[in-house]
């Protein structure tokens, strides 16, 4: 049992701020509790003697053995809410649901109040929901500590929402559709308990089969990934994360006051956390229903059984769009279908048992295909005909699903004729849709979750690195008046074992010549200035300079940089051995620290066209070896690395290790907020980091 089990399964609930005043939140909560809660409800209000038939107490400390109150629901006005929470803490109540609004979401005074609330909650170690929450619900105990107007029906879905209004909407909607819930929580401002806490709680709750969430931001993405990764082995998590678009992000920022964070980080982070991310409310509940009602498939192969040619084709298209594949039947299956189906039927997948099919023909066809070991799941698509009763068909599907133990989704393409069939299917947990694409989408989600639950998580490797040296390099930069560092910080990469070409940053033509002579062949020379971002655009890079011309080139580079920006800080010129671009592939390896998820690693095709081609992939660091390897395979141009068109393949192992080493570097130093190695040249003999740019958060250092 989790830490929050008494929050959702209390015996005594006190409403601080209970009132009879018509239209008030305090009344709504009290009457909702009285309507269905199995346990004891206590009313607290110094200004009333009785509320809705309950005797009223002046303060929480006045009730009998106040320490045994399991949950205090706070509905008093904001200026006395923190006192009410403190008193609850003092008498020993552990769970507090703060419905009162008027905290951080309302501006300065509210923010101060929320800070106070947080301090009190931390002092008494409270499990605090909200503030600015609609409340909590839990169906087994009939607990409805919300001011919504609908109590959930019982079920095995637990649901959290960052919007209270959305909870009421969902409940209203669910009431019509046989969607039942275990626990529901409106997260409010997430001052103490946030999405991660509830995911952890429900992960341990045997009565919760599916976790749903509507989120606008995630407080601590790294922690969320850690928690969710554990939970999703057994319990699927389906999330709507709104604010995907720029306009949506702005709306979310106004609503929560938090930066929405980058969409790419969410996509990667939620993927790594093992959650199923959906984009619409419809998908949220489609996935929830099939995950709670159907077993997981053991493969991707789907069989389609239909009485209608056209819808059969539509269904096949939907399969093509998904990660599922059409099952290829065995010879025995064909044989049996040939025997049992009419000649006009199509016995190949999709199986079209034609318009005159009665329920028995569906039964026979389904039984045959579900017995085929190449079939992992099925979708039944039926249009209403005079010879088919949907009620009968529903019975057939339920029976066949039970016998086979394989997941099935149905598409009964009708309106009123679906009637009783819908109820039979719902009762058995078999989803039913009008649109075949939704049925296939749901089965696809089921398969995706199967893959997630089987994921083996490997811990990121730790390399032997020179952390002190890296810290010195970063600190030397903080003495300058900039947050930007360039190749002058190459030693940072050396310290973490990321190979760099031979070379040095020098500040006189003589030194430049000496370095070039040391290298002994043609060199690359680059201006080094934190103020000049695109060096090649201003002629700040010269490639293939013979040692004899190094002095003059030094002069040229400095003059060009000065002409471009007269007040630029010029640290000198970098003289570097030439990278082998003939056999090498230019890649980019970088990191951008996301406000929610932390370090987001980026890998892709590099060089000067990186912004045009945008062939990149991201992961939240730290990454393990398989994750780093996945990044290489993810990009469109992966074949280039593997030796397309007769080229020698690059040293992938070295590339993977470099990704891991950078992952360790950016995890070790939160002060690095942005870093790009572009290009990271990969050759058959290894990799070399040719150029570096990074941004530091000086205050973090």
């Amino acid at each position, binding site marked *: 049992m989790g830490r929050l089990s008494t929050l959702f399964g209390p015996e005594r609930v006190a409403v601080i701020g209970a009132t009879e005043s018509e239209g008030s939140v305090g009344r709504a909560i009290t009457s909702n509790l009285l309507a269905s809660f199995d346990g004891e409800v206590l009313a607290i209000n110094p200004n009333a003697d009785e509320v809705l038939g309950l005797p009223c107490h002046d303060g929480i400390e006045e009730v009998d053995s106040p320490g045994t109150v399991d949950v205090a629901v706070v509905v008093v006005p904001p200026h006395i809410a923190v006192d009410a929470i403190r008193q609850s803490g003092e008498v020993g109540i552990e769970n507090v649901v703060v419905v009162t609004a008027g905290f951080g979401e309302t501006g300065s005074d509210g*923010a*101060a109040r929320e800070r106070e609330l947080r301090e009190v909650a931390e002092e008494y170690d409270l499990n605090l929901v909200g503030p600015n929450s609609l409340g909590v619900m839990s169906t087994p105990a009939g607990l409805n500590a919300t001011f919504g107007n609908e109590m959930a029906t019982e079920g095995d879905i637990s649901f959290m929402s960052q919007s209270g209004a959305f909870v009421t909407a969902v409940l209203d909607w669910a009431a019509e559709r046989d969607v039942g819930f275990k626990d529901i929580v409106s997260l409010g401002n997430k001052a103490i308990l946030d999405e991660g806490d509830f995911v952890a709680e429900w992960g341990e709750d045997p009565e919760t089969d599916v976790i749903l969430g509507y989120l606008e931001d995630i407080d601590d993405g790294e922690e969320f990934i850690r928690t969710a990764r554990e939970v999703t082995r057994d319990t699927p998590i389906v999330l709507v994360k709104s604010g995907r678009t720029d306009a949506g992000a702005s709306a979310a*920022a*106004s609503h929560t*006051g938090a930066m929405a964070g980058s969409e790419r980080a969410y996509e990667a982070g939620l993927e790594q956390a093992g959650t199923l991310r959906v984009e619409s409310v419809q998908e949220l509940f489609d996935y929830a229903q099939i995950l709670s009602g159907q077993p997981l498939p053991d493969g991707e192969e789907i069989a389609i059984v239909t009485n209608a040619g056209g819808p059969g084709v539509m269904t096949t298209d939907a399969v093509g769009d998904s990660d599922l594949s059409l099952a290829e039947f065995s010879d025995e299956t064909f044989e049996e279908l040939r025997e049992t189906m009419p000649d006009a039927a199509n016995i190949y997948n999709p199986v079209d048992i034609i318009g005159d099919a009665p329920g028995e023909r569906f039964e026979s066809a389904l039984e045959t295909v579900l017995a085929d070991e190449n079939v992992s799941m099925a979708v039944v698509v039926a249009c209403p005909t005079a010879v088919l009763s949907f009620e009968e068909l529903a019975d057939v599907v339920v029976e066949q699903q039970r016998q086979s133990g394989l997941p099935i989704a149905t598409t009964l393409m009708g309106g009123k004729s679906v009637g009783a069939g819908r109820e039979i299917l719902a009762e058995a947990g078999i989803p039913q849709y009008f649109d075949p694409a939704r049925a296939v989408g749901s089965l696809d989600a089921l398969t995706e979750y199967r893959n997630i639950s089987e994921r083996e998580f490997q811990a990121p490797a730790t390399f032997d690195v020179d952390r002190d040296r890296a810290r010195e390099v970063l600190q030397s930069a903080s003495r300058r008046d900039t947050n930007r560092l360039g190749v002058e910080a190459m030693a940072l990469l050396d310290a973490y074992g990321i190979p760099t070409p031979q070379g040095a940053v020098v500040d006189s033509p003589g030194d430049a010549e000496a370095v070039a002579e040391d290298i002994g062949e043609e060199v690359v020379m680059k201006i080094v200035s934190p103020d000049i971002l695109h060096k090649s655009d201003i002629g700040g890079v010269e490639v293939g300079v013979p040692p004899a011309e190094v002095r003059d080139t030094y002069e040229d580079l400095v003059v060009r940089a000065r002409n471009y920006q007269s007040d630029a800080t010029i640290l000198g010129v970098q003289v570097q051995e030439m990278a082998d671009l003939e056999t090498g592939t230019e890649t980019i390896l970088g990191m951008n620290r996301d406000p929610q998820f932390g370090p987001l690693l980026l890998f892709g095709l590099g060089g000067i066209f990186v912004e045009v081609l945008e062939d990149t992939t991201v992961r939240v660091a730290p990454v393990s070896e398989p994750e780093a390897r996945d990044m290489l395979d993810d990009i469109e141009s992966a074949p280039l690395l593997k030796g397309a068109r007769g080229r020698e393949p690059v040293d992938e192992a070295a590339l993977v290790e470099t990704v891991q080493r950078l992952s360790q570097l950016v995890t070790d130093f939160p002060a690095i907020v942005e870093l790009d190695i572009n290009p990271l040249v990969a050759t058959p003999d290894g990799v070399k980091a040719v150029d570096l740019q990074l941004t530091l958060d000086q205050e973090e250092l």
Partner: protein
Amino acid sequence: MTDTLLVTSTEEGIGKTAITIALAKAAQEAGKDVGYMKPKGTRLQSAVGKTRDEDPMLARELLDLDAEMHEMEPIVYSPTFISEAVRGREDPDEIRERVVENFDDLSADCDTMLVEGSDNLETGGIVDLTDADIAEALDARVLLVCGYATPGDADEMLAAADRLGDRLAGVLFNGVTESAMDELDNDVIPFLEGHGVPVFGALPRVQDLAGITIGDLARSLGADVLTSDASTDVHVERFTVGAMGGNKALDQFRRTRDAVMVSGGDRSEVQTAALEASGIKALLLTGGFRPASAVLGRAEKKNVPILLIQSDTRTTIDRVEDVLHSGRTRDTETVTRMQELLGDGVDVHSLLHLSE
């Protein structure tokens, strides 16, 4: 005999006022009777009553002088004055006489007289009263305050030295960044001295002098401070404009330091991004649009003040640029801090001829 030191500079906003008043304070502390004058008022404020330069007002207050403002600042170098001078309606000789007369009055009982120059060495040429002309008229020694960025700046210094001739007592570098300091010390100062330009020293750039507090910025702009708990004592030195989407904006904001972020009040995603970047010390919202209250709450939590101004972003940027660029000597603390820096880096006694 009164010793007169005129403090001039090659560019405006380099710390003339703070240095002049700090030197005056140092002389006072050494027991001297000190006077102050700024013949050409250029930093004009017309907020209260007559248009006046604010520097003499500050000097008067900090040095506890009872001289009349119009004596301390005989020329109000306003746009009107300039137009009239160009049209030939101002008489240079008469003006010069007025300056000298006022100076004589002010310096009558003083051991040390500090005269603050205006903007740069060219200012005042239209009435034959550049700082060099004034030094000549008042028989003043000249302290030339310069910034330093690159060795090429030496050209300008040599030209200025040439112009000031024998009146140049020496150069004082101010606001030198740590990265430029070595080069200045090792290469440039010896070079200047080799060319007969004496150098008194180089003062490092320090944050509390380089910037302006957010509170002062709000006052200068007439902006409302919407947050109530977030501290407005933090200094900002530059501004950045939030004109792009949230994540692009975050990259930009992270690259800057000690900055105020200017954007429209309706851009929640840009505002919240700014609150994530530690280099952004304040948000200045334009157009009179109040931010979403949740954003305001977030700002309090992050201890980053939000200022609101009615003007549009374009106009606001110009005004912020003005405030950040023009000098920032506003209070006793600035002058005290400057005095400490001078004490550490410069032989103030010999600079002010105090021992004589």
